[in-house]
């Protein structure tokens, strides 16, 4: 599903590479944590998978597509198979929960009718039934992140990327979000999550890949934060 082959990423003007000769494979339906201190290169992996940045060297394959050679005009279509959640939610403040999710569908060409059918369903799934017409500022942090998850998942992506999704949430709310991601993972969606929340990693007991200074130092099937 996801394959990184000898990937090195050096940002311009950086003294050392963010990722240094990293190779890792992730199977369909896996749930993987990337952990490590700030600046270790975890987030660069998300960026590579989204084709926001290109590797300096090496090969990145997502959904059998070699991202490195992907033409730039094909990137939008490629991204439709990937959902993404961030620490800062990235919701549109002037749109309701429903509209935020529907927006993601409408801008990729889905009709309003499709949105009317699918959006309530996915909001129900993330536990926001009845709060469809609240604006982000009327929702708690956890609820806002649920909207973001709903938006990422509404298009039924093959992969869900989560960049520190619990970074702005209290522990209890974080656990709820993790339960939600777990539920999504059980539908067959591959989940890749970057975090440094040790509680969560220890509780989930999923595959853990630890990165330090751009290198993989640990890859454990049912790991803990350690």
């Amino acid at each position: 599903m996801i394959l990184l082959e000898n990937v090195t990423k050096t940002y311009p003007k950086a003294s050392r590479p963010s990722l240094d000769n990293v190779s890792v494979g992730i199977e369909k339906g896996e749930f993987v944590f990337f952990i490590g201190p700030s600046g270790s290169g975890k987030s660069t992996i998300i960026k590579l998978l989204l084709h926001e940045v290109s590797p300096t060297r090496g090969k990145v394959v997502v959904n059998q597509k070699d991202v490195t050679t992907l033409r730039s005009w094909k990137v939008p279509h490629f991204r439709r198979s990937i959902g993404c959640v961030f620490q800062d939610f990235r919701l549109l403040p002037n749109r309701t929960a429903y509209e935020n999710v529907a927006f993601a569908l409408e801008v990729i060409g889905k009709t309003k009718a499709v949105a009317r059918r699918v959006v309530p369903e996915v909001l129900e799934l993330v536990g926001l039934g009845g709060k469809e017409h609240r604006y982000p500022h009327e929702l708690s942090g956890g609820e806002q992140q649920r909207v973001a998850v709903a938006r990422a998942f509404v298009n039924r992506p093959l992969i869900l990327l989560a960049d520190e999704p619990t970074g702005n949430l209290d522990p209890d709310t974080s656990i709820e979000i993790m339960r939600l991601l777990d539920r999504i993972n059980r539908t067959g969606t591959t989940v890749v999550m970057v975090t440094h929340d040790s509680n969560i990693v220890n509780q989930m007991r999923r595959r853990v890949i630890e990165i330090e200074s751009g290198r993989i130092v640990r890859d454990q099937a049912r790991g803990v934060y350690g």
Partner: protein
Amino acid sequence: MRVKYILNEVLVGLWRNVTMTIAMIITMSVSLTMLGASVLLYMQVDQMKEYYYGNIEVSIFLTDDVTEPQKLAIDEAIDSSSLVISKTYESKEDALKRFQKLWADTPDFVNAVGSNSLPESYRVKLSNPEKYAEFAKAVEGKPGIRQIIDQRELLDKVFKVFNSIQVMALVVAGFMAVAALLLVGNTIQVAAYSKRREVAVMKLVGASNWFIQSPFVLEAVVAGLIGSILGFVALFVSKIIVLDTKLQALATILTPIPNGNVWLMLPLLAGVASLFSAVTAWVTLRFYLKV
């Protein structure tokens, strides 16, 4: 739905930044008016050349003391030139008659001119008025010729004036166009900034590039179209006011500008305006919305 969404975005975009939109439209319309005027002038000069060059003659004025053999020699020289289409001889009496007719409104002036004061002349029509120099060489210097006047030279002076007006209009159009396009770039930048969250989400969920960019590009195009319509109206109104009423005297020298030509400016200006604004907007987006 998507069309409706995009159109709505365009209108909201133009309205959000309405003072900038107005500035953009005004500069654009001034630039386009100048462009239209210079194109019209160009067409006009072309048409006038065609019209006048068909009628111009070379006048060969003879001295008062010209002798018959001298006249004969001149006559022969004219006839032997392959450039000559036709030739008429105007005697002193004919010249006076023509003069009297021409200035019939001012009898005092006419009376002051005696029958002897106008010279005899040959009026020669050339097959190609541009080859005047060649013809002049063949005839020049013959005794009995006082002066050879090429009407084309006079006309060319008039055309030169038109030409410089045209160049001036083009220069102004160019400067205004630069200002207008900078404003377009600026407007698009502001628009892209105020919609940065939407754009970020759109990129994230995989909206196609054209879908992200088209509202911005269309915003510029719509402003350009409004500008071109205003520019066209300004052109039409000034044509009516300046040429059809205020400067009718000038209009008798100018061949009339057909309204059809003025109408032709509408699609031209609209095309130029929308093309240039679209390209400017698109280039601006390349820099500010890296997709």
